[in-house]
């Protein structure tokens, strides 16, 4: 256990972000199953440690672009859960007034510039945001989150080249969640089809500083991001972080399914873990791992952890209620916001 390498405040702040991400996604899945929205969607369950620790290491002025698995990044950045759920439900009170939805939600007021649901699209946008930072001679950084599948897109490779040539302050965060994914042979879908045996070899070919880390280890993610931001802020960017997670079983099917339901008590009482996906919960759930480490290290008691858990659940439920009670986007506003 390396959690002692982070101070208590930072650890608990990362943990709080993770709790919000997790219960947000469980709420989204429930709202989908209640038929409150119809579109395809992607859940961040299982990857919270990566997003939360990266976002913890960033400053308020840093800029973020992400990919379709975006809810966790938005909530981790501090976007209002009610407005974010409202966006997913197509409500007028949504972050983007119902024009983006789950696949395109953004929150520019928090430096959260874009969700591009075009695979790899965010890598170019993040490099561009970094180019904007360089043009303005500022010291903030841009972060682009994407999955391992994005490395199959030419735009991403082109963006590595330009980011390296122009020393752009951009951190590419590749969330490799494919380990253990079900391929087409088992009735699932292929997630990464590549001839390379190591994704970091691609950015490394352009001289980009690369690290491979355990994406469920908040210490590893926080430290890698802190080092990457240091490099970027001192003109030594870009950086590439590959964070491994094991795909949450609920994300393996074509459409997300409620494969597991979070109960933090399982963190200190593994005998409670039941069901067909018990192995994933026991070995790979970053939320349980972090909760367990926090208690084991004495940063908080079980009761204190559960109080935080309850607080996050309450905030998400309030957000869901706000969203459900909000009016749908008004059809007469459909022409608004095409141009500035």
């Amino acid at each position: 256990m390396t959690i002692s390498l982070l101070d208590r405040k930072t650890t608990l702040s990362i943990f709080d972000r993770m709790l919000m991400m997790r219960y947000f996604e469980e709420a989204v899945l429930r709202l989908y199953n209640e038929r409150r929205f119809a579109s395809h969607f992607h859940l961040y369950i299982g990857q919270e440690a990566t997003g939360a620790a990266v976002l913890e290491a960033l400053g308020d002025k840093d800029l973020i672009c992400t990919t379709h698995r975006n809810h966790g990044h938005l909530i981790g950045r501090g976007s209002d859960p009610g407005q974010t759920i409202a966006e997913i439900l197509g409500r007028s009170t949504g972050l983007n007034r119902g024009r983006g939805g789950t696949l395109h939600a953004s929150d520019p007021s928090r430096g959260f510039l874009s969700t591009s649901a075009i695979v790899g699209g965010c890598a170019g946008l993040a490099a561009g945001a970094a180019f904007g930072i360089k043009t303005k001679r500022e010291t903030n950084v841009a972060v682009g989150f994407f999955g391992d599948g994005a490395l199959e897109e030419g735009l991403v490779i082109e963006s590595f080249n330009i980011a390296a040539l122009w020393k752009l302050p951009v951190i590419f965060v590749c969330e490799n969640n494919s380990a253990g994914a079900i391929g087409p042979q088992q009735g699932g879908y292929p997630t990464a089809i590549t001839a390379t045996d190591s994704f970091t070899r691609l950015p490394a070919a352009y001289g980009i500083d690369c690290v491979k880390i355990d994406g469920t280890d908040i210490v590893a993610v926080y430290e890698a991001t802190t080092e990457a931001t240091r490099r970027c802020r001192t003109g030594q960017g870009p950086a590439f972080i590959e964070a491994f997670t094991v795909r949450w079983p609920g994300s393996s099917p074509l459409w997300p399914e409620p494969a597991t339901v979070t109960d933090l008590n399982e963190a200190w009482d593994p005998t409670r873990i039941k069901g067909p996906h018990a192995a994933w919960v026991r070995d790979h759930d970053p939320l349980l791992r972090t909760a367990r480490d926090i208690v084991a290290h004495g940063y908080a008691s079980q009761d204190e952890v559960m109080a935080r858990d309850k607080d996050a659940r309450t905030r998400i439920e309030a957000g869901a209620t706000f969203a459900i009670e909000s009016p749908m986007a008004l059809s007469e506003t459909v022409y608004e916001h095409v141009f500035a």
Partner: protein
Amino acid sequence: MRKISYAGAIVEALRTSLSEDSTVSLVGSYVLGLGPKRVLMDSIRAEFPDRIYDPPTSEAAIVSIGAGAAMAGTRPFVDIGTASFSYVGWSPLVNEAAVARYMSGGSLRVPVVYHMLHGLRGGGAAQHSGSPQAMLWNAPGLEIVLPSSPYDVKGLMRSAIKSDNPTVFINHARLMDIEGDVPAEDYTVPFGRADIKRAGRDVTVVATSFVVHAALSAAERLAADGIEVEVVDPRTLVPLDHKTILNSVRQTGRLVVIDEAPLSCGVASEISAIVAEEGFEFLQCPIVRVARPDIPVPFSKPLEDAITPTTEKVIAAIRRVIDPRAKNAATRLS
């Protein structure tokens, strides 16, 4: 007034924009193409060495980087070069830059300019003669600028760089050497305001970019026969000045629309449809379109000439609307 080249007018607009706003950057500096006028960019390169980035041949990435940099609050001017290359960067152009503001519900601005050189240029053939303005017009969220004169290009480029929206600035490769009156002082030409390049009472010809000059020479020649042609140059397709076009057709009752984009679903087709819907009662005869035929651009000169909207084709089209019964007199137009 002082006469300078179209290329010189572009350089003046870029210099003023770079001097005035430190958030303006140039991604790609071969804005004037690779012809003899390219040397005019040397002074800009010397003056703003840290604001000009010549990128690798990665159109998708530079289009994307332009969009991202604009989202981050700067005003990049991204030169794509030959317009046919823009297809390589199509996804970030139509999936990111064009839609980002709408997807954000109005909370994001994307003030990027994408510059490209379109059109038939003599031997460019299928992959170096593209005119993507109609395809771009079918991607809502982009402003589209098609200047035809040195005066317009300077003022429109100033407006494009100041615009808070993603703007596609399409120059014709053959316009660079054209000379015209250009004030030395700074000015802007507003978007969405057509210019009547020549007034006339008998027939309206709507044209943009290089084919404005085919329209003007056709008008000049027909004036000798007593036919007065009004040449309307919309200057921007998005936004489009419906009013000036319709007012002209109201007075003339006859319309010819010229463009270099392929005929089907093209610029000429869209403008014709707008007039048919909004100004049908003004029309005394069917609208005639002169556009590129729906075939890839060929290389050999006689073949390229055969698909070019020339002065002769414009004259034939005008004669056809002046005397619709003389259909047989018209050559095959496109």
